[in-house]
């Protein structure tokens, strides 16, 4: 097992290197740099930034250096000292900015995923067991509607509805009185009151796909001989389905669970922007927009690493859950 993990990690290294290079490159791809954004921000208020000021900042931020020098500076600091550099825009260390927001992001991601799975598994199981029934069509339709409505639209409309008809304080994850308060039961409750919109929006988008996979997997498994075996034992139908086919139909999910997190983090960006959630997504978007190089680069790198680690974890988890799979074969899957 350990050898297997070690080998996988080793294979990941070149990919990691490529990702780091790409993430750094991506941010530099658009014309201009952070200073352009800075000047543009001032320009938007009709304040004209002096040429000399920009030149000095360029020098200070090292933006006048060639690509490889900047890259080396960045990556070597990460590798040697875990220092992700400073954000130009926030003028704070990148790592602290990201960590600040990671907790809520994770919480949101986990709650959304659980909710999505809960809904998707229920619907998926139902539609598979009752294939081609009215219920199948209805729930499939519901699932797809969630997929078909663009996230930002759903978020905006839900937000307006909650403003218009529930008088709820809009946006964010906390009411103003809890915004800067320390954690308490009240704050937690407040959080959950605010979280339903993003959770619904994020979950509906992913649910359709999950329902579809679940349904297809389950349709496969439902006709497997071991289901008949279990039925011949006299088991109750729903218990039987839950214990055997559903359990096996979950395996393909587990193999993709590692992808979920990065997908959610990047999928959450748009929703979070509309709903103003204090998560990592909007931070990344802002950083990208303003070409806040180290922040955006580190972020993309981190997401990439998360994806890779996620895949690895999935494989390990799958190997653990499905005793048939031997570790050697996973790699070539």
């Amino acid at each position, binding site marked *: 097992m350990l050898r297997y993990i070690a080998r996988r990690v080793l294979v990941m290294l070149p990919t990691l290197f490529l990702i780091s290079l790409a993430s750094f490159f991506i941010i530099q791809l658009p014309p201009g740099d952070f200073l352009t954004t800075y000047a543009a921000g001032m320009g938007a208020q009709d304040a004209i930034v002096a040429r000399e000021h920009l030149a000095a900042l360029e020098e200070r931020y090292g933006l006048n250096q060639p690509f490889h020098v900047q890259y080396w500076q960045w990556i070597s600091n990460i590798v040697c000292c875990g220092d992700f550099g400073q954000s130009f825009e926030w003028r704070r260390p990148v790592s602290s900015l990201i960590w600040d927001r990671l907790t809520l992001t994770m919480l949101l991601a986990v709650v959304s995923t659980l909710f999505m799975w809960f809904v998707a598994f229920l619907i998926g199981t139902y539609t598979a067991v009752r294939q081609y029934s009215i219920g199948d069509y209805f729930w499939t339709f519901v699932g797809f509607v969630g*997929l078909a*409505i663009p996230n930002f*639209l759903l978020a905006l409309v839900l937000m307006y509805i909650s403003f218009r008809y529930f008088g709820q304080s809009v946006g964010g994850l906390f009411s103003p009185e809890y915004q800067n308060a320390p954690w308490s039961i009240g704050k937690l409750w407040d959080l959950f009151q605010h979280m339903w919109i993003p959770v619904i929006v994020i979950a509906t988008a992913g649910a359709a796909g999950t329902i579809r996979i679940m349904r297809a997997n389950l349709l*496969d498994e439902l006709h497997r001989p071991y289901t008949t075996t279990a039925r011949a034992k006299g088991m109750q139908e729903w218990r039987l389905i839950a214990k055997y086919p559903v359990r096996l139909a979950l395996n393909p999910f587990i193999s993709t669970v590692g992808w979920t997190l990065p997908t959610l983090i990047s999928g959450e960006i748009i929703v979070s922007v509309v709903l103003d959630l204090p998560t990592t997504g909007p931070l990344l978007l802002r950083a990208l927009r303003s070409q806040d190089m180290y922040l955006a680069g580190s972020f993309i790198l981190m997401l990439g690493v998360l994806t*890779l680690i996620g895949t690895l974890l999935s494989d390990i988890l799958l190997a653990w859950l499905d005793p048939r799979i031997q570790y050697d074969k996973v790699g070539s899957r």
Partner: protein
Amino acid sequence: MTHIEPSSQTDPLAETTPLGAAPPASSPVGSPTGPGKGIAEAGNAGSGGNLYTASQWRLMWWRFRKHKLAMASGIFILLVYVLLVFAEFIAPYHSSDHNAAYQHAPPQRLHLFEETPDGSRFNPHVKGLEYETDEETWRRSFSPDEEQVYPVRFFVRGHEYELFGLFTTDIHLFGTTDPEAPMYLLGADRLGRDVLSRVIYGTRISMSIGLIGVVMALVLGVILGGISGYFGGWIDSAIQRVIEFLRSIPEIPLWMALTAALPRSWSQVQVYFAITVILSIVGWTTLARVVRGRFFSLREEDFVTAAVLDGASRPRIIFRHMLPSFTSHIVAAVTLAIPAMILAETALSFLGLGLTEPTVSWGVLLREAQNIPSIAHTPWVLIVPATAVVSTVLALNFLGDGLRDAADPYNK
């Protein structure tokens, strides 16, 4: 998996129960060189009927037909593409026709009968519109002007346009007989432009961006996935690394960087094509995985072995023997990829990347409408394009689902 194995002759040991879910799909019946079962048994069966001789496509069609929702969706999609082709003819106005008098005009009712002193008579028409502007809030409120009756007819004359760049005409499918009269069946936007016409014109970009993007993703996906799946070994792992790498980069930064890096001298049309390329850069990896998976399973099949033994060249095996045997899967995968592209386009527009006004796409229309006043005061500018997007994406999904079920009921 239990299903009918019609070739009971080949393996008397394997009894299977006649579940009868569907006729065989996994055997490559249509494959001309498949030396195995299909052809041989079609001859033997005698009374076997056309079920066994039907081509793969035909079988797929039969199975597809019974998926009612998918059928309906297919028809809907066809209609949308008809809109795309004949947009100028079907839309009563041009997408940029504006009219200061009808800014934010609400949807007008289409009256079928006109009440006249002599009783009601059939005369489809719309009423005129009047408005008042609030001094303080500057908001307009419209009310129908009962006095003014503008008949609505088929094949009326309106603005001139060129159809397919071939001939110029001014005939429109429907409209008011008086070209100056207002007809905003789905309301007007902030510049007094007809929302219906804009959505119709929007199909141009939105429906083709998906198609072209998918085609590009398909070409890349099939070639690379095919190579990966057929050869395996180090080529496979190299391609897999590339896929892994591309998928590890979050989509949004990738889109943002790539769209921002487009030369600004490019026209909107060039940008449009560039965006399809960008979308397909992410899209092909999924298709490549599907193709690769199929190749892996097909590689073991008898007819491929037979072709290898025949001494067929590798490209020939891949493109003549293996590819045709799962085209149906590809068709299904492609159908499912199109809606993803359409949604991606709207997301790009939301982020202010990619296409912007004055280009008219559904994403652009949605972006215009995604603000609070639109939701609160002029919901039609949001609802109409949103309905277009949602129903099309839904239909494409159902269509794809149906196709996939039809292509191979046993594979995901």
